[in-house]
């Protein structure tokens, strides 16, 4: 049923990304083969990767590993392995794939994932993270720590003073734990340099994101942003990571100047909410490409951190700025209504025609209640909004015919209104 568009989405940047990610996975494999370096498993939402880098501990994100599996169409057997062990069909498929991966010796087509020397559960919004790392702790026996990040819950939408103190104290405890695991003490000046690089990376990333405000958008802020997200988490704070974003910034700025976009023609500017369907990403993107629909902004690209509205890491107060990053500068730890506001800014400041909500079964943090979100945008904001469902990891929940039908109907209606606007209504028989 799929209609391949034959459009080549890959640019310079995608090639560079492939290269540095391959290098990253080679490092991971080397650790798995016992080169003595330490690896920590942590999670993407509001990740405190700077601290790990300060101890030369390689950050391993189970989410990145399992989405790689899904993109390579290899996630299902791992999911099923976990289901044999008693995990339910309704459990998050990211977790199931990772558990399956553990039982398969962490061997993947792209890397051998090292077992964790330490489990850092940065509990930033997602409650499933807690179950996930609890199970990994049970399976691997690695030392584990929950970093408890109080959720945004006050009228002003900001963390409380006590929240910041609490998180900073926990980060100090994490430092002690890392010192025990690595047998070295924290080199503060090296650490502040890393935070400094994170700040500059954030600056570049924020500017890159602002570029999609221009017409046409130089890149797709959903399908192409994911290309830039992996380095943002795995390499943030490193020289190489910083270089990647300098290259990205240059390439995108040139595209803006040249007025080139990802598609031959930008017919619809959309904001996409929710994680992508990794198992069928290309097919899914083609469904939008057929209509000349380009994402100018996406909430998913702010899972790891929300930089476009001004947050930067602060080398002068490294721990406190990391705490603030975890507490309030990522989409996961903000309230559902704050996400509405974020999307409204995207619609207004990025000049979008419509909102597309991709609801994934696995991730309730994102999806639970998106019907209300649709309601808000359609009723209160009069923004055409489409709600579609599949999953981010489990191919069994991707119903191609159904998705195509809804996406076609949605853009058909937008286009029909454009065409008939101003023209007299045809008289029915």
């Amino acid at each position, binding site marked *: 049923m799929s209609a391949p568009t034959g459009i080549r989405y890959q640019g310079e940047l995608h090639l560079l990304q492939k290269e540095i990610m391959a290098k990253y996975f080679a490092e991971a494999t080397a650790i798995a083969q016992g080169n003595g370096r330490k690896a920590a498993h942590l999670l993407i939402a509001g990740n405190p990767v700077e601290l790990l880098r300060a101890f030369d501990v390689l950050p391993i994100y189970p989410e990145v590993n399992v989405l790689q599996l899904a993109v390579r169409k290899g996630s299902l057997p791992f999911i099923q392995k976990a289901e044999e062990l008693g995990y*339910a069909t*309704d459990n998050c498929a990211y977790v199931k794939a990772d558990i399956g991966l553990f039982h398969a010796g962490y061997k993947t087509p792209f890397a051998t994932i090292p077992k964790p020397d330490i489990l850092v559960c940065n509990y930033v*919004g997602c409650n499933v993270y*807690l*179950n996930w790392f609890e199970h990994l702790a049970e399976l691997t026996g690695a030392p584990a720590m929950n970093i408890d990040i109080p*959720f945004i819950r006050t009228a002003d939408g900001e963390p409380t003073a006590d929240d910041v103190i*609490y998180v900073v104290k926990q980060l100090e405890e994490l430092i002690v734990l890392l010192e025990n695991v690595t047998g070295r003490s924290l080199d503060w000046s090296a650490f502040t340099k890393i935070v400094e690089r994170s700040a500059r990376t954030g600056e570049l990333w924020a500017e890159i994101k602002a570029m999609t405000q221009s017409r046409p958008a130089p890149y797709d802020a959903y399908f192409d942003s994911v290309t830039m997200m992996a380095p943002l988490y795995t390499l943030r704070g490193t020289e190489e990571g910083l270089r990647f974003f300098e290259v990205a910034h240059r390439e995108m700025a040139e595209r803006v100047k040249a007025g080139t976009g990802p598609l031959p023609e930008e017919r619809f500017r959309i904001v996409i909410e929710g994680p992508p369907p990794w198992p069928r990403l290309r097919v899914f993107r083609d469904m939008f490409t057929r209509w000349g629909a380009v994402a100018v902004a996406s909430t998913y690209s702010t899972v790891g951190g929300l930089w476009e509205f001004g947050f930067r890491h602060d080398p002068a107060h490294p721990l406190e700025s990391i705490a603030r990053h975890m507490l309030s500068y990522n989409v996961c730890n903000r*309230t559902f209504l704050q996400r509405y506001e974020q999307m409204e800014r995207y619609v207004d400041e990025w000049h979008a025609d419509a909102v597309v909500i991709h609801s994934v079964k696995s991730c309730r943090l994102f999806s639970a209640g998106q019907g209300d979100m649709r309601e808000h945008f359609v009723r209160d904001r009069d923004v055409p909004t489409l709600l579609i469902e599949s999953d981010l990891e489990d191919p069994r929940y991707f119903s191609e015919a159904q998705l195509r039908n809804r996406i076609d109907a949605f853009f058909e209606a937008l286009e029909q209104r454009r065409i008939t606007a101003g023209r007299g209504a045809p008289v029915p028989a």
Partner: protein
Amino acid sequence: MTLTLDPAFPSARYRDVIEDRDFPTVRADRERTGRAAIGCYPVYGPLELAHAAGLLPVGLFGGGNRIEIAHADSRFQSFICSVVKSTMELGFQRKLDPFDALMFESICDPARNLASIMSRNFPEQAVVYVHLPQNMTSPATADYLTAEYRRVLASLSAVTGKTVSDDDLRASLQAYNRMRAALRDLYAFRDERPQDLATGELYTLARLATLMDPLDVTPILHEALDAARARGGRMKDRIRVVLVGSFCEQPPLELIESIEESGCYMVDDDFLLGWRLFRRDVPTDGDPCRALAVAYLDDSVHLSTKHDLRAPRAKAIVDAVREHRADAAICLIAKFCEPGLFDYALYRKAFEAEAIPHLYLEFEEKMWLYEKIRTEVETFVESMLFR
């Protein structure tokens, strides 16, 4: 006649009350005392704070199987558990009007989003959100939770306009201590003489305790214990089971009854667990907010929404089976409940390691037909009795 339907037993008076989503006990309390009420979403919240602030804390356990979901599934998808939807539905059907405020806690992702969505759709109710900590190993956590409780207390007294003294708090701690102690006694009695206290009866009483002021309900619990003691039922040929997985969304009373009548005695369960979470009384000397915080961190029973790296829950369940001399465990898990479903994977591993027979069942509060579950429980019991 089954025990549960014994009209002379105190719980029989409340069988309908606990399923009535017009909240008669709450309306009666307001008429008598004129005080406002706060609906408390499961699993656990600091009820004492609300009580001290002059609110009647009321357990909000969804819509049960009498409410038809007509609006809420336009907000929440098919893969979201029923209690989230039915709570929203209660709002749309104006059933939450008796409440001036609603309390939600950081128990799972859908519940957290629900708190936001409720505040958007029903601004007339103040939404109080409590972030319960998940780092049980840090010395900083007790300070955090104490501060959090002070913050919550402030927003609660903002609802009633009452300034709360530490003595007010101590009085409330005491009231809930007594209520929880009475429930502990009833649970201990059922463990000892399950033939004289059916789970349906115990559940009705425990559920009633979530709908009334602790000061008013405790005498009823005492009365029930005496009535049960006075019975002299014959022990039936049934297996003793520990039931886990129903700590948040609640199964219909009829389901609890048909499970027991399919041939087992429930000698322990986790129904309404948040309302009887503490192992012993909360100390009433010293800083009451800190006492309540420490009780949650260090002195509460295992809970699927509390991730304590010091004490694996699977071990706690296995201990419970031993402690209650149970023959088996039944995992009765709410459909789409991620905390419950994740825990099952760990429980199953532990049960198999310990050779404890177990049965896995899924339920929904809005269930109406129990044939499938009945068949599975009967089979399970048959397989144990004819072993």
